[in-house]
């Protein structure tokens, strides 16, 4: 790699220019939240805890609550529906693996805005049957996170010999439930955890579907609050981006832990 690496000057020039370009809007947003007349202060941050202004932030807290419920439900779909199906396909129907992969990655090619056009009539029916609560969006979000979750879990499945593990467990008398929960799940935990975290991040950032189906989630609340108090929207933007950044750092660690084990 040393031979391929760019020279010191090239590295620094590219690095600092891009860093500058990408830091500028984020730093500006931070300075914007500190603006107080002509000076700088933490008054807009303090307003978050001000009881008098609680009404303004109301939608954000409700939206955040809804988004967290949605994140939990979406993770449930990933862990209890997607993961067992992937294990089943890998164990019993290896011939379906490439078809399954195609299906799981398909949502990348279908814009959310297109999906929404078709989801509108479906959610009209769901509204009649289950009500118009924000939690029903979890069904749609399960599809949105599918490609991300699939990649994370598949990487884990590929790094563990699940066939041998299963046969060993079965030959020692385990039933299928204990094979799934006590043998395979612990071995795939890095992939399952990464898939769950990335699903949480995607759900917390989702706007298109929630907005056009008129559900209050974190992102739609931000847009609503932005019209009243642009500073509040900026503060929550920074916090949400920082939160997602930390999540992805953890996911990166998990991924390396998984591939490290494969090398041994």
């Amino acid at each position, binding site marked *: 790699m040393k031979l391929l690496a760019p020279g010191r000057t090239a590295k620094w020039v590219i690095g600092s220019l891009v860093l500058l370009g990408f830091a500028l809007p984020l730093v500006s947003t931070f300075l914007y939240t500190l603006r107080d007349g002509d000076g700088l202060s933490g008054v807009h941050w303090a307003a978050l805890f001000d009881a008098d202004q609680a009404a303004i932030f109301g939608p954000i807290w409700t939206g955040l609550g809804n988004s967290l419920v949605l994140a939990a439900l979406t993770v449930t779909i990933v862990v209890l529906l997607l993961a067992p199906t992937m294990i089943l396909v890998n164990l019993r129907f290896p011939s379906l693996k490439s078809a399954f992969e195609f299906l799981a990655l398909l949502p990348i090619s279908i814009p959310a805005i*297109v999906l929404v*056009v078709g989801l509108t009539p479906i959610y009209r029916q769901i509204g009649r049957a289950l009500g118009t609560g924000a939690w029903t969006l979890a069904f749609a979000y399960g*599809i949105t996170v599918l490609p991300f979750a699939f990649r994370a879990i598949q990487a884990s499945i590929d790094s563990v010999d699940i066939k041998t593990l299963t046969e060993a467990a079965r030959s020692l008398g385990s039933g299928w439930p204990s094979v799934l929960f006590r043998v395979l799940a612990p071995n795939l935990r890095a992939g399952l955890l990464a898939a769950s975290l990335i699903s949480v991040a995607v759900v917390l950032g989702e706007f298109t579907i929630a907005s056009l189906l008129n559900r209050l989630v974190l992102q739609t609340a931000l847009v609503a609050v932005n019209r009243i108090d642009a500073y509040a929207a*900026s503060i929550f933007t920074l916090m949400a981006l920082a939160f997602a950044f930390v999540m992805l750092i953890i996911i990166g660690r998990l991924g390396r832990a998984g591939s490290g084990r494969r090398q041994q």
Partner: protein
Amino acid sequence: MNSKTIEGASRMRRSSRSEGPGQSPAPRGASRLGWLGLLPFASYIAIFLALPTILAVSSGLFDGDGVFTLDNFMVLVNPVILRTFLDSAWLSLLTAAIGAVTGALVCYAMLGLREGGPIRSAVDAASGVLAQFGGVMLAFAFIATIGQQGVVTLFLKDHAGVNIFENGVWLYELPGLILPYVFFQVPLMVITFMPALTALRPQWVEANLALGGDRMSFWTRVGMPILAPSFFAGVLLLFANAFSSYATAAALVSQGSQIVPLQIRAALTSETVLGRENLAGVLAFGMILVVGIVMAAYSLIQRRAARWQS
């Protein structure tokens, strides 16, 4: 049929390995159980992926009374709609080109860094955040930066005497989308292109040196030809990404429908636009056609590129 043969083969293998009785777990019943196990996921996909896609694409084929018609598709040659598709296309192409070149340079600059080192980890995570979860929040960041009251706008006005909105406020129009889009296109390119770049083997550089080449000739004769497919695959992916992106534009542009996703928003929120029924369906059809073709080309090129990455 196919699965039965596989099941049979594996049963033979298993029974030849283990002599004990009762070892083969009734394959016929188990296989049927296996198919049943696929059912929940299959029905979920059918209801929430296949059905909405079919509904979205086919709703343009019916008029207000549910009668089959191709009339709605005439709207695709309507000058307003055509203009929106063209604007969407050039916005996507421009930001894809800028994003791909910048992203590739970032990947190149990171070549010497250890995978899993602090800088690589931070760049990977930051890229993921900006590429996939930015959406609405990127729009806010740019409003805070170069909006009418933005930090940079006011700084330039007060200290450099430059008014970036001298010819009108362009941030909430089509040109205003370029910067925020580049902001999520570059990170996506970093994520997509980095594996191709790290797959370049040091042995190829050594071979090139041994044969009398230098650093420059390595890139022009070996590096770039090998990376070209990955690079163009990246451009296509970025194009599709920008073309289908909705959130950033929706948060930034509250009036007008300068790009196709915003036109769909207008069609969904008001019943009839341009006096057409089911316009959203027709637009969705157009979008999926464009994105589908681009993504098919992407996976073809990507397959070719993957040859060098094993």
